[in-house]
C-alpha cells in the first residue's frame, strides 16, 4: 500500500483523463499494444477499471500485504483495538499517551491490510473459438480486465488457461507493473484444450491451494457436464463466479435448410432439418440448460452469470458484475 499508492494515483489520473502524452506507463502501453497487436484492453476500458476493485464475499487470509483489510491485526493505519502489553511486544506500538494518563502499558492494535488471490480460469476448449468475436477472445478480454482490477489493487492475480498446453505455467502476477506481462500472457493463450473441463479444474485445484476469488469463464459446453468441474472448485472453499459466455448465434441460431452439424471439439455429427419447431425446441433446451446451470450454482453458493459476446466487456463489468458483487 505504501509503496504502490503514488504510482496508482499517478496512473489513475492519467488514465482517467485519457492523456498518455506525458506518462511513461501509457507510452509503454501504447507501444506494447502496437508491437504485440494487443487489443484486449483499450485505454478507455483501463481507465474505467482503475476505479474498481475486486470484492470477495468471503474474507481470506492473504500471503502478503495488500490493500484490503484483514481480520488479522497487523500493521496499518487503521486502528483496531488495544491490548495489554506483554514483554516482547514491539515497543513502537505502545500508546504513550495512555501510559501518561493511566501509568499502564497498552499496546495499540491495527487492522492488517492483506492481498487477495484472484484466479481467472479461461476455458480454452475449441468450442470457445466460435462466434464473432469468438467466445475465447471475449473470455480473454474479460479475464484480462478482471485481472487488471486485481493488479491495480495489488491482489495476487493468476489467469489460468484451462486444459491448454499453457496450463500450469501461468504466472502469479501482482502489482500494476505486471500489466504487460499479464496481457502478453493472456494474448498468447491458445484455444487448444485437449482435456475436459472437469479434468482441467481438478488439475488447477490441486496446483493452487490459495483461497480467494475464482472466476470461471466458460461456455459450459462440455459433453461430460460441468457439475464435476464445479464440485472441485466448491471443495476448495473459494469464492466462485461462473461467467457463462455464449455467442449470439448460439442464443438465436440463424440456420435454415437441411444441415449436418459437426461438433468442433469431438467431430460428433447431428443431422437436422431446420424448422420453426426445431428452433423453438432448441431455444427451450438452451433456456433449460442455462436455468439448470443457474440453479446448480445457486445451490452451491456459486455466483452464476450468463452473458453474450455481443455485450461489451466494460458494460459487463461495470454493470452486471458490479450487481453480482464481484467488483465495486
Amino acid at each position: 500500500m505504501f509503496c504502490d499508492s503514488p504510482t496508482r494515483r499517478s496512473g489513475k489520473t492519467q488514465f482517467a483523463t485519457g492523456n498518455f502524452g506525458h506518462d511513461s506507463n501509457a507510452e509503454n502501453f501504447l507501444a506494447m499494444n502496437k508491437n504485440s497487436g494487443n487489443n484486449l484492453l483499450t485505454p478507455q476500458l483501463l481507465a474505467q477499471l482503475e476505479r474498481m476493485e475486486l470484492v470477495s464475499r468471503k474474507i481470506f487470509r492473504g500471503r502478503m500485504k495488500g490493500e484490503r483489510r484483514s481480520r488479522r491485526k497487523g500493521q496499518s493505519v487503521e486502528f483496531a483495538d488495544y491490548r495489554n502489553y506483554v514483554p516482547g511486544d514491539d515497543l513502537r506500538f505502545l500508546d504513550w499517551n495512555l501510559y501518561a494518563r493511566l501509568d499502564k502499558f497498552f499496546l495499540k492494535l491495527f487492522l492488517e491490510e492483506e492481498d487477495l488471490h484472484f484466479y481467472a480460469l479461461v476455458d480454452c476448449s475449441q468450442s470457445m473459438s466460435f462466434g464473432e468475436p469468438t467466445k475465447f477472445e471475449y473470455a480473454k478480454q474479460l479475464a484480462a480486465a478482471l485481472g487488471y482490477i486485481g493488479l491495480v489493487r495489488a491482489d495476487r492475480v493468476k489467469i489460468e488457461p484451462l486444459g491448454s498446453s499453457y496450463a500450469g505455467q501461468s504466472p502469479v502476477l501482482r502489482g500494476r507493473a505486471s500489466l504487460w506481462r499479464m496481457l502478453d500472457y493472456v494474448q498468447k493463450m491458445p484455444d487448444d484444450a485437449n482435456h475436459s473441463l472437469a479434468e482441467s479444474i481438478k488439475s488447477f485445484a490441486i496446483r493452487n491451494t490459495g483461497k480467494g476469488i475464482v472466476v470461471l469463464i466458460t461456455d459450459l459446453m462440455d459433453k461430460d457436464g460441468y457439475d464435476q468441474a464445479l464440485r472441485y472448485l466448491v471443495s476448495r472453499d473459494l469464492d466462485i463466479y461462473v461467467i457463462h459466455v455464449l455467442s449470439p448465434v448460439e442464443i438465436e441460431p440463424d440456420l435454415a435448410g437441411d444441415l449436418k452439424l459437426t461438433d468442433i471439439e469431438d467431430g460428433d455429427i447431428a443431422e437436422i432439418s431446420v424448422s420453426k419447431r426445431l428452433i423453438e425446441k432448441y431455444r427451450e433446451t438452451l433456456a433449460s440448460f442455462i436455468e439448470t446451470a443457474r440453479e446448480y450454482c445457486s445451490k452451491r453458493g456459486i455466483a452464476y452469470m450468463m452473458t453474450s459476446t455481443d455485450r461489451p466487456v466494460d458494460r459487463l463489468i461495470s454493470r452486471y458484475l458490479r450487481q453480482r458483487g464481484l467488483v465495486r
Partner: protein
Amino acid sequence: MSWFNSVLNPLGWTLLLVVPPLIVLLYFLKLRRRPIQVPSTYLWKKAIEDMHVNSLWQRLRNNLLMFLQILAVLLIALACLRPGCEGTELSGERFIFLVDNSASMSATDVDSGSRLDEAKRQVGIMIDRMKPGDVAMLMVFSNKAEVFQGFTVNQNLLKQKLGEIEQSHRPTDVREALNAAAGLANPGRTSTDAGDVQIADALPSTLMIFSDGGFENVNDFSLGNLTPEYHAIGGLLPPVNVGITALAINNDPNISDRREAFAQLTNSSMEDQSVSATLFVEDEVFDAQDNVVIPAGRSVGISFPLTALFAQLDTATQLKLVVSPDDDMTEDNVAFTVVNPPRLAQVLIVTPGNEYLELAMDTEPIQKMASVVFESRDYITTEEYRTKAFDGEFDLVIFDQCQPETMPNCNTMFLGDKPPGDDWKFGDKQYPTPIADFFRSHPLINSMQLTNITILEAAKIEGPSGTQSLIDSTYGTIMAIGPRGGFQDLVCSFPLATFTDDGFQVNTDWPSKLSFPLFVQNLVSNLAGGARFLTQDSASPGEIARISPPPTVSRVQIINPQETQFSQSRDKNNMIQFSQTELPGVYTVAPDEFSTETAPPIQYFAVNLFDPQESNINVREELEIGFEPVAATTEVLPARTEYWKWIILLVLAVIIAEWYIYNRRILI
C-alpha cells in the same frame, strides 16, 4: 353423360399413381445436408431428441409438406379424369363451322339479339364441345365466302375469330362457301378433272352450317368427305317481315311524260300485314301511303307520282322509301333511289353525208335524249377529235364508211366499215344479201320486223370473243355487237348508201322502213347511254357499281352512307368502278377535292338489298345439298361443364402453399 372422362391411358395412370409412393420414398431418403461446424452439438442433440422418432407413422405425422405434395399429385390425377357434368362432346375430329352473315341474319326474332348473334353463340357452344385434339375451321358466307380461321386445334383462337364476325348486308349464296369448304376438307380435289393430283389424304369433316336457310338449294355439288349438319337459326315463332324488294322510277320520256316511283313490297310472314310507306325526298317527307295491305307470302306494288318533282329538278336528288312499323328484319324496310339531273348524250356522227341518219336523228325522242353532231370524215384526223375521243367527251360515235386510227373511249357504231385492228374481220362483199335471221330480243332491235329489208351489198363479219350476232344473212353475220373493254362496238357491214365517183348509191331500203328510226332511237338510248342519265339502276351490297362521270372529271370522291370517303380515278375504259358498296344507302359521287360549299355532287347512286329471297326470313327446315336432304337441327346441347381447370388452379395453390411453408418454415 359421365362424370369422368379420362385423358390418360392405363400406362399413364400407372405412372401417375406411382408418383405418391415415390414422394413418400423420397422423404425417407437421406437428404444431402449442408455441413456446418458448431461449437457443440450438445444442445442440438438434446433439442432433436424429442423430435427424433423411429416409427414410420410418427415420422409422417407432421410432415405437412409431403402431404401437400401428395395432395397436389392426387389433384392432378383428378384433373386427368376431367370431371364434369352434363353435356356432350362433338363426335368427329374435324369440323367446319359455316356461319351465315347475310342480310337475313340480321333478323331479330331470336332471344340473343340477331340471328347472327344466335349463330355465333351456338358456334361458341360447339367449340366448347370439341374434344382436345379436334381441329376446326371457321368460315363466313353471304354471297361470298371468307375463311375466318383455317383448321386449328386452338379453341381460344376460334372463339376470338368467331367474335370478330360482323353482320353483312349482302344476299346469300352458299355455293362459294361449300366449294371452299370442300376444297379444304378434301385436299386431293381440284376444280377440274384435268391434272387432278392427290396431294394429301382426304379426311372426313363435319360441315356445320349455321344459317336460316335463306338460299337456294345447291344440287350440282358433291359433298365428298363432308358430313353436313344444318343448324337452323331462327325464332320459335314464325317471323314477321315486310320488305321493299324493288324501288324504281320510270325514266323513259318516250313512253310517258308521267314520272312515278314504283315500289314492290313483299310480305314473307304467315299472315297478312298492313304497313304504311313513306317516301322521303332529300330527307323530307314527300308522300306517304297508309294501310297498304299485303297478303301473306305475296307482293304488292305501290306507286308515288313524281311528275311535279321532276319538273323542277335541276340537281341530283335522293329518294328514300321507309316502310313502318318495324318488323323482325328492319334492313329491308328502307330503300333508296336517286334521280340525277338529265344530261344529253353526246353523239358524233362521222359521215360523208347521210341524209337517212340525219332524218332519223332529227326526231323528237332523240332530240330529248341526245345532242347529235355531224362531222365529215376529215374530222377524225384532227387534234380536236383525238382529244375529245380520248377524254371520253362522246357517248357514242357513229363511223359511217370510215374508221379512226385509234378507237375512242366510248361506244361506237360502224356502218360499212370495221374498227381498226385485227379483232374484227370482214369477208368478201356479197350480192344480194337476204336476211336470214336476227336477234329479236336484243334491246337494239327488240320488237322489230327486219326480214322485209333489202340489202344489196354486205360482208360477213367476224368479231372478237364475246361478239353477239344481231342480223344474219344467208352467208353469215352482217351486223354484230362486240365488247371492247367497258365499251361496245356495233358493226354493220353494209352502209345505208355509198358515195362513189359514180355518185350517190342506195345500198338498202332499211331507212324507208318503220324499224329504222326505232333502231336509231334504241341505238341512242342504249349505246349512247341516254337511259342512264335520269335514274340509275340500284346496285346490290357488295356489287361493283359502274359510274360514268362527266368527261371533264378525271378523279372523283365517293362518299358512302357512313360519310367515309374513297378516292377513285377512271380505269382504262374511262369508267369508274367502285367495289366498296357493302352498305345499303345512297353513295355520293363528287369531284375530287369536293366540298359542299364550292360544288354540288356530280351524282348519286343507290345500293339496296332488293332480294325477295333475303327478305323472306322464314327459316327453312331442310336444305338440299348435292341432292342430299339435310334436316335442320334446332337442339343445341350444352357443352360439357368441366372442372379440370379449377382443379389445376387448386394444384397451383397447393404448390404455392407448399413453397410458402417450406420457405417460411411454418411447419414441416
